[in-house]
């Protein structure tokens, strides 16, 4: 038993040393959504650590106290049936723990699914992120630009991603800004986030999608609003327009570097939402219908407010 503890200590020490230099990405949030998940993770780690410690203490106690070498040779262990009170405790306490974590889970899940806290009044910046083997295409309909494999977002600004795929199921993930969400070919998923610290962040597809999966990453740069507007203007001044022909070439399987275009592919290849969605034939799942209605509302809202913003 001692051997095991020695090993565990060694592992933990190594782990701390190895990772001590930099905090783990998921636990180093740079925006409200990731902060929520990081907090939830810490809450659950602490709660669960208590459980592990209790089990370890009980186990060590049993093993040291009741090992055969410590008992007299003629010791006959008693026959003990279950006891109502003991079993009440071992059912009751786990139920309390699970109930507590359930509340945490529900609250935080609603939180990360909604517009980030503190940004409710703001009109979110809508970006369509669509994946193809093995690239990410980011369309900014309001700014009328499109990038490949890199993403610029303004800080302190709610961003609403509309995720879909041109093929396999992928998962859009920027660990330091928010948890992931699937991008699929027959529906559009929505992901809300906001960055509060300017900087470069790792973004990737987290869901296995074939040969090019490991390199299916993109770079995220968060910058103040003014710099972002400057960047948009620069693109309009320098980049080529995205044509249907070019876009279809981009969709071919393979890896591309970072690219920039004016215009978006949404004009000739719309996202599978609303009328184009796989669900418009009347999905039996009501909740999905609701999400779509919600999306449509957003669309009309953003059109109305677009002029005010400019």
């Amino acid at each position: 038993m001692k051997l095991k503890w020695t090993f565990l200590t060694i592992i933990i020490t190594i782990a701390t040393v190895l990772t001590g230099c930099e905090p783990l990405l998921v636990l180093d949030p740079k925006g409200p959504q990731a902060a929520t998940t990081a907090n939830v993770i810490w809450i659950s780690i602490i709660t669960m650590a208590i459980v592990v410690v209790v089990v370890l203490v009980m186990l060590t106690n049993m093993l040291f106290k009741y090992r055969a070498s410590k008992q007299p040779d003629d010791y006959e262990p008693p026959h003990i049936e279950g006891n109502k009170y003991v079993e009440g405790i071992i059912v009751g306490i786990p139920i309390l723990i699970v109930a507590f974590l359930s509340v945490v889970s529900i609250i935080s899940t609603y939180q990360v699914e909604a517009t980030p806290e503190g940004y409710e009044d703001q009109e979110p910046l809508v970006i369509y992120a669509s994946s193809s083997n093995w690239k990410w295409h980011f369309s900014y309909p309001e700014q009328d630009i499109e990038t490949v494999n890199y993403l610029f977002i303004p800080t302190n600004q709610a961003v609403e991603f509309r995720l879909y795929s041109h093929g396999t199921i992928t998962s859009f993930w920027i660990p330091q800004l928010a948890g992931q969400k699937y991008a699929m070919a027959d529906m559009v998923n929505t992901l809300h986030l906001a960055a509060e610290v300017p900087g470069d962040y790792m973004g990737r597809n987290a869901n296995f999608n074939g040969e090019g999966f490991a390199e299916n990453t993109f770079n995220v740069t968060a910058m103040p609003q003014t710099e972002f507007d400057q960047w948009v203007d620069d693109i309009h001044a320098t980049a080529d327009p995205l044509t249907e022909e070019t876009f279809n070439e981009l969709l071919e399987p393979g890896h591309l570097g970072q690219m920039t275009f004016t215009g978006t592919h949404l004009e000739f290849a719309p996202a599978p939402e609303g009328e184009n969605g796989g669900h418009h034939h009347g999905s039996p799942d009501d909740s999905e219908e609701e999400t779509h209605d919600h999306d449509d509302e957003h669309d009309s809202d953003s059109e109305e407010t677009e002029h005010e913003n400019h």
Partner: protein
Amino acid sequence: MKIDSTQHLEYSTEQNRINILGFWIFLGAEIMLFATLFTSYFVYEDRIGNGPSGAEIFEITPVLIETILLLTSSFTIGLAIHAMRIQRTKAMLGFFAITLVLGAAFLGVEIYEFIHYYHVGATLQTSAFTGILLTTLGTHGAHVMFGLFWGIFIFIQIKKQGLTPQTANKSFIFSLYWHFLDVMWIFIFSFIYLKGMM
């Protein structure tokens, strides 16, 4: 082999009782199989893609004929088991034969129905809806087909050996299977055809 004569013939040996329990468990698995098919059907029901919808291709006449044939056959297999229990081998064989003939007729009409679907352009490869429709009907049809051959084999065995604990056991289990297929057909009739034609 101990034969317990206070029980019905099909329950008269321990192995017979085990067989019947085993078959009930098998039917439990079959229920899950069809439940999965029905669930999938409900998901795909309105996802007709470029193909026709149910209302466009369903025809009431063959479906009604199929339903009557299968319901009647379920009744006659019940009669056959009743005859078996009162030791009327001849009557039992008669009802058994009628059941199989009705089953074959059902299959005949179902084949006609499938040809109809083919002609109106509803094949496995048309859309997700037609695919699941034909898969569900086909799974049921394949079960009936399998039952038909199985039934014929049992029929021959009773003819040769008479009613023994073994043949009685087989016949009883066959009747469970046949009733089960009938129940599944009632679900198909209600939730696929009637719902689709409404």
